[in-house]
């Protein structure tokens, strides 16, 4: 029972992290109609910045805050320098352009930080484990990730649903032309939204950094999952991204945890252990396929068009 509970927490933590990535992706895709493959590079930059700044300042939290600001600035700069030239073109050009950005960022990181990767050590108060119930220990840091991402989710909810900027963002996701026609400074709005998306990706990267290593190309695997989340949740919908991210996170973790054992009851142990990892990593894509069959627009469509 504690095992199941622990796996659910693991799934929750992973899902919330995916949400941070997917939220930025879905906003950019929904509002600017831009396919941004380089989102994973911003995730990577967040991690590299955090690893560097926390050494400079000698403090994990300061380093994280500085890294967040730095990714925000990089994101806005990328929007102004590169993305603006891509909006009017079709999706294939977006893919090509942002794929070029991935190569650019990977190579830049190699030049600046070297190919070996960095590590981001945790402060002692986060590196241990916490007793949640008697006999049940859970990593303090993973718990901290859950708390921080829930906070960010609440902040996003208030920002998008309760503020004027949020209103414009929602309006942009539903009908971009009309927002522009009503005299809103759409350029500024785009830069802000892209910067916000970048900062969220950077936050995901820097929070993942102590669990994983900071390395070149770290964003590319997780980006695929973030796209899956975006598609399941419905493009442009923050709420959809949250629900889909949690679904994907929990399904992925529980699949990895329990699927092999279930298979072992039906198949020979060797066949099961060879088959289970492949099948459990397919679960997410099965979920996506089912959602797309039932609701082609995703679970919570932002209602554009």
């Amino acid at each position: 029972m504690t095992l199941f509970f622990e796996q659910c927490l693991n799934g929750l933590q992973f899902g919330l992290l995916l949400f941070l990535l997917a939220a930025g992706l879905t906003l950019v895709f929904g509002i600017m109609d831009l396919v941004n493959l380089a989102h994973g590079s911003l995730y990577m930059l967040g991690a590299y910045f955090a690893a560097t700044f926390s050494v400079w300042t000698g403090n994990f939290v300061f380093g994280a805050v500085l890294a967040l600001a730095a990714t925000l600035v990089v994101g806005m700069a990328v929007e102004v320098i590169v993305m603006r030239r891509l909006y009017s073109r079709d999706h294939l050009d977006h893919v090509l352009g942002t794929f070029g950005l991935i190569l650019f960022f990977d190579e830049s990181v190699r030049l600046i930080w070297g190919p070996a990767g960095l590590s981001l050590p945790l402060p002692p108060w986060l590196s241990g484990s916490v007793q949640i119930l008697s006999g049940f220990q859970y990593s303090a840091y993973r718990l901290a990730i859950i708390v921080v991402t829930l906070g960010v989710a609440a902040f996003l909810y208030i920002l998008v649903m309760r503020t004027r900027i949020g209103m414009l963002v929602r309006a942009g996701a539903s009908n971009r032309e009309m927002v522009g026609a009503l005299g809103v400074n759409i350029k500024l709005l785009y830069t802000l939204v892209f910067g916000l998306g970048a900062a969220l990706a950077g936050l995901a990267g820097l929070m993942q950094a102590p669990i994983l290593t900071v390395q070149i190309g770290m964003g590319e695997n997780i980006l695929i999952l973030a796209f899956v989340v975006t598609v399941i949740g419905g493009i442009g919908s923050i709420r959809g991204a949250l629900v889909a991210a949690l679904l994907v996170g929990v399904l992925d973790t529980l699949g990895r945890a329990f699927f092999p054992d279930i298979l072992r009851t039906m198949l020979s142990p060797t066949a099961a252990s060879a088959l289970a990892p492949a099948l459990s990593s397919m679960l997410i894509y099965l979920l996506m396929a089912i959602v797309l069959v039932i609701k082609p627009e995703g679970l919570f469509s932002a209602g554009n068009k």
Partner: protein
Amino acid sequence: MRKALFVASAAMLLAAGPAVTPAWAQQKTIKIGFVSTFSGPTAVIGNDMRNSFELALDHLGRKMGGLPVEVIYEDDGQKPDVGKQKTEKLIESDKVDFIAGYIWSNVLLASLKPIVDSKTFLVIANAGPSQVAGELCSPTVFSTSWQNDQTPQAMGTYMNSKGVKSVYLIGPNYAAGKDMLAGVASTYKGKIVGQDLTTWPSQLDFSAELAKAKASGAEAVFVFYPGAAGVQFLNQYAAAGLKGTIPLYTAFTIDELSLPLQKENALGVPGAQQWVNDLPNEQNKKFVADYRKKYTGLRPTFYGAQSYDAAQLINSAVVATKGNLADKVAVQKAMEKADFKSVRGNFKFGKNHMPIQNFYLQDVVKDADGQLVLKTVATIVKDSQDRFHDKCPMK
């Protein structure tokens, strides 16, 4: 850079005159193709292999049997399909005499057929899939590393000697990962309470597997994660509160490249290896000292040691056949002798061309400067031979 090298070597040739250019030289250069990973997260391993191979060439005066050596490095990107393409390019368009390298078992297995079909000599400097030691063994294929199972087999033996009663196995789901877990299982006498194979190389979060290992009540955990994944595993092992409560036993998870990132998390975690940087033979002392001198700030790994040996093995065959590489049988016979000073101490080849060698227990300790280093603690097995040599049809 390459041009400068070429000019320099040409000048040296001219200066030396015909005295050192042997009359029996039928070809002008020895061409070696080296396939490894030079891009992506595991590029550091490929770089270490290249550094060591280059150092070996330096030690050989950049000549083998009096002939200049040309090495063509190719990047497999850790992908089997790319590795196969690069291998075919080396054979068909560069027409190399030898191919060396290969970190990953799955890349090697994909690239093996064109090498064997073209009868090009291959010296594997890391990967050791069971198939190559067994049914896929070939007269022209040699290894200066090990068969995958050998290292975990040694670890299994060590766990027996420590009286470990039950263990949980975790590794990546690809050719080498399956070999590693099977290797432990073949020598370990206690109970294996569970095992997990994870998606490779994309899965880097092991929370679900660690939770299962903890809940299984196993007395110990055995793990195999090469490269960056090993860093993540050890960090997460500590964060999950398992370090210090459940002892960890490893193969190929802690090396000189991952240790600076694993730091304290690796302290006291044992591993098995056929080469450790402090092995006391003369060749090894020279290798380690010169490596650290040539590449400041870096330390060689077992990947590098195996690549260094690969260059020495190729050299021994070129020297023994006086550069007449057209006589494939003579080259094969020369290589089978393993007539060179290996940095792990000398070894013999089995009939399947896999080394028969000792395996050592390595531990992570703090040296006099407070730096974390790998240290040989004991010899676990002497003259270990892989358990697939019977399946090899070669005599």
